[in-house]
């Protein structure tokens, strides 16, 4: 492998990291909104959020990317850049799954906490901000870190329809020009492993610490 080819793989890895970070940040914000909507007091809001999450969870990411890439043509936008299209699709995808994870964590906070907060006169938002969210976020950290691993792996799908120049795309281009699949796809696999394995281990460690009282 020459110097330029290694650089190409590392640039692809940077693209992967960039897309994953964008997804987690924006998808996290949207996911939190979805989670709060899922447990809202208004019934139509709850049902709408539930239906949206079911819709997105039953869609392959590749189809979502296709819709986000070719969809803007409806609004008259002719050309769509690769990163915004990929980021939009991944944010929609991540927000649905994170919304469900965080809804579970919000509902896992004991009912007595919700009631006691109401008894001492906190408003709904104060209750959420000061009592429920801190406890729920602590419980949510292991599955969220686990989902971050999924996000990093799913960024590889952006190389297919959209052609965003992340790690899988660059590895495929290198393979197409040199016909050495074991070398380039193996290197890409190693780079993905180096990104994902520490996060997997961290998620497991967080889970153990969270349930330390049970052992």
């Amino acid at each position, binding site marked *: 492998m020459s110097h330029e080819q290694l650089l190409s793989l590392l640039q692809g890895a940077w693209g992967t990291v960039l897309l994953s970070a964008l997804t987690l940040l924006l998808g996290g914000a949207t996911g939190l909104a979805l989670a709060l909507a899922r447990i809202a007091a208004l019934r139509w809001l709850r049902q709408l959020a539930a239906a949206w999450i079911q819709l997105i969870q039953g*869609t392959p990411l590749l189809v979502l990317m296709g819709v986000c890439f070719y969809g803007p043509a*409806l609004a008259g936008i002719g050309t769509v850049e690769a990163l915004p299209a990929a980021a939009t699709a991944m944010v929609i995808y991540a927000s649905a799954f994170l919304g469900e994870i965080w809804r579970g964590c919000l509902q896992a906070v004991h009912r007595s906490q919700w009631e006691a907060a109401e008894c001492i006169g906190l408003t709904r938002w104060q209750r959420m901000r000061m009592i429920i969210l801190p406890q729920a976020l602590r419980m949510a950290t292991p599955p969220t870190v686990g989902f971050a691993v999924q996000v990093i792996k799913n960024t*590889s799908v952006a190389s297919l329809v959209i052609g965003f120049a992340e790690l*899988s795309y660059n590895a495929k281009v290198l*393979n197409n020009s040199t016909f050495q699949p074991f070398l380039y*796809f193996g290197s890409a696999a190693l780079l993905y492993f180096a990104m994902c394995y520490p996060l*997997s281990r961290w998620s497991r460690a967080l889970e153990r610490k969270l349930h330390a009282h049970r052992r």
Partner: protein
Amino acid sequence: MHYEFDFASVAAHWPLLLQGVWTTVQLSFLATLLGFLLGAACAVMRGSRHGWLRTAVGGYVELIRNTPLLIQCYFLIFGLSSVGVTMPIMAGATLALVINIGAYSCEIVRAGIESIHHGQLEAARCLGLSSAQVFWHVVLLPAVERVWPALTSQFVLMMLASSILSSVGAEELLGVANRVQSDTFRNFEVFLILWGLYLGLSCLMPAGFWLLGQLVFTRRRKLGTPL
């Protein structure tokens, strides 16, 4: 909005799309069956006495779970072709899916096996059941029954991820849809129809698994209580 929807030209290709749906169903069914068997075998090996076996299976699971399915497909299919091992593309696609889903199923089934209380094993020994009977009736079947919903979700996710295999040439639903797109140049309409088809499949598949669970795990149905 200046865009004119034209679903008619896409819908004219319905036999091809139906063919794609059938291929996806076959691929998912085969990968689910073989992947589950591989995963269950790996889960059992994970609890073995021999350290080398535990490490080997653990290494396989960690490697597969921390790399994307796309890279695994490329590595397997292009890699095997480069050393001269050729096979029909559907066989290669099924192999890639089985290797992938085997690692995830291994972890899920292992969690189920570890959730069986050791009191169950002791009681079974006291009743005079042989090792094989204990393993099948007291460990494996109840474990799989417990993790059946988790397994269902994982297999549905695998069916959705099988769309990635179109990139290596497998003629499943997305691969077929690419051909329709080349014919009609109606990318957005094709993706919308694909969306609907995959949604339908992702509703039917859990229903099928539920039905299978009702047929195989009779304890819940007959006694009304889980383990």
